[in-house]
């Protein structure tokens, strides 16, 4: 199964994305390291959810080309803003099977900027950072 693909025609996610990403950026840093013109979908198992200041991180294991899991780091917004949006320390739990849409790192390393996620319970969560100005 292809677990990593470019969203060439993000029809199903398009409306959700527009609704979730219109707000301004609350980040303290530049987003120049992310390719914000590009969105990729990654599916895998949550290893760790870092519910921390100044930004949250989701550590997720994704099957690589050889099928072996590789760890990715996905950066989200600040916990204070996400908490106000309804996020909790348990929004992502180790072992959860989730689908994440991210702006990948320009460097090609395994990481990116969180755009939104489809959680194990079927809910979708977004992130105010999705349209951050660089």
């Amino acid at each position, binding site marked *: 199964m292809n677990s990593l693909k470019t969203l060439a025609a993000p029809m199903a996610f398009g409306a959700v994305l527009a609704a979730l990403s219109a707000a*301004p950026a609350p980040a303290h*840093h*530049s987003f*120049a*390291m992310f390719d914000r013109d590009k969105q990729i979908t990654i599916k895998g198992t949550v290893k760790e959810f870092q519910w921390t*200041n*100044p*930004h949250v991180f989701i550590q997720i294991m994704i099957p690589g080309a050889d099928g072996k899991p590789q760890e990715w*780091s996905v950066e989200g917004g600040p916990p204070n803003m996400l908490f106000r949006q309804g996020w909790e320390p348990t929004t992502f739990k180790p072992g959860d099977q989730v689908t994440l849409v991210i702006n990948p790192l320009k460097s090609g390393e395994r990481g990116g900027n969180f755009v939104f996620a489809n959680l194990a319970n079927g809910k979708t969560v977004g992130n105010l950072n999705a349209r951050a*100005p660089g």
Partner: protein
Amino acid sequence: MIRSLLTTAAACAALACALPAAAAPADFNGVWSGDQGVLWDTSVKPGQPPNAPFTPEYKAKYQEALDASKAGKPKADPPAMCLPPGVPRIMASPFPFEFVVTDKVVYILYEYMSQVRRIYIGGEAPRGMGLPTFNGRSTGKWEGDTLVIETTELNPMSVLDTTHLPVSDALKSVERIKLLGPDKMQAEITLIDPKAYTKPWTTVRTYTRKPGEQILQYVCEENNRNPVGEDGSTGFVGPK
């Protein structure tokens, strides 16, 4: 009667207990959230160049920052290095802040970078260290129901927003803050900075009162996986 009042006053002085304060001319107390984005010039749409009356030197400085950003090497922004955004940029903070108004000092408690401003009302601010600081030295006065804050001794390392809109060491910031309605506040922020701007430059921002909202603690250095390199670019620390 007089004796008992005197005794109470003496006890209060000894215990530093708070005597009832005279009512402030306007009720700013509470938590507020900005209505505009983080870009400084609220008079233009995001993505449009700011309507700034630059001096030639600072116009060139700004252009240099824009070019660096375009080349993928943006200049280091103090908040990216976990430094305070500074006055007046902190009034464009993406996070809420809380006003606490007392007779002698108005406190503004910001969630962003856990900053505190003290505005000394009707007199002199305590003498500064002779060292420009991110929040500077602020005095305030009430003009009717408008709080007028003047801030000097500001750190010229600050910029006004993520596009690196500059200020100089000559900056004086004048904020005129008033209520537009019970839960709507307006700040007219004028930059008087003859080195950077040829004339005073006023920007208007509004804020909405958030009853029941709390100020959370934002600590930039706790799990900061985005270190800023010597060239000013922001990094990303991946899996160990």
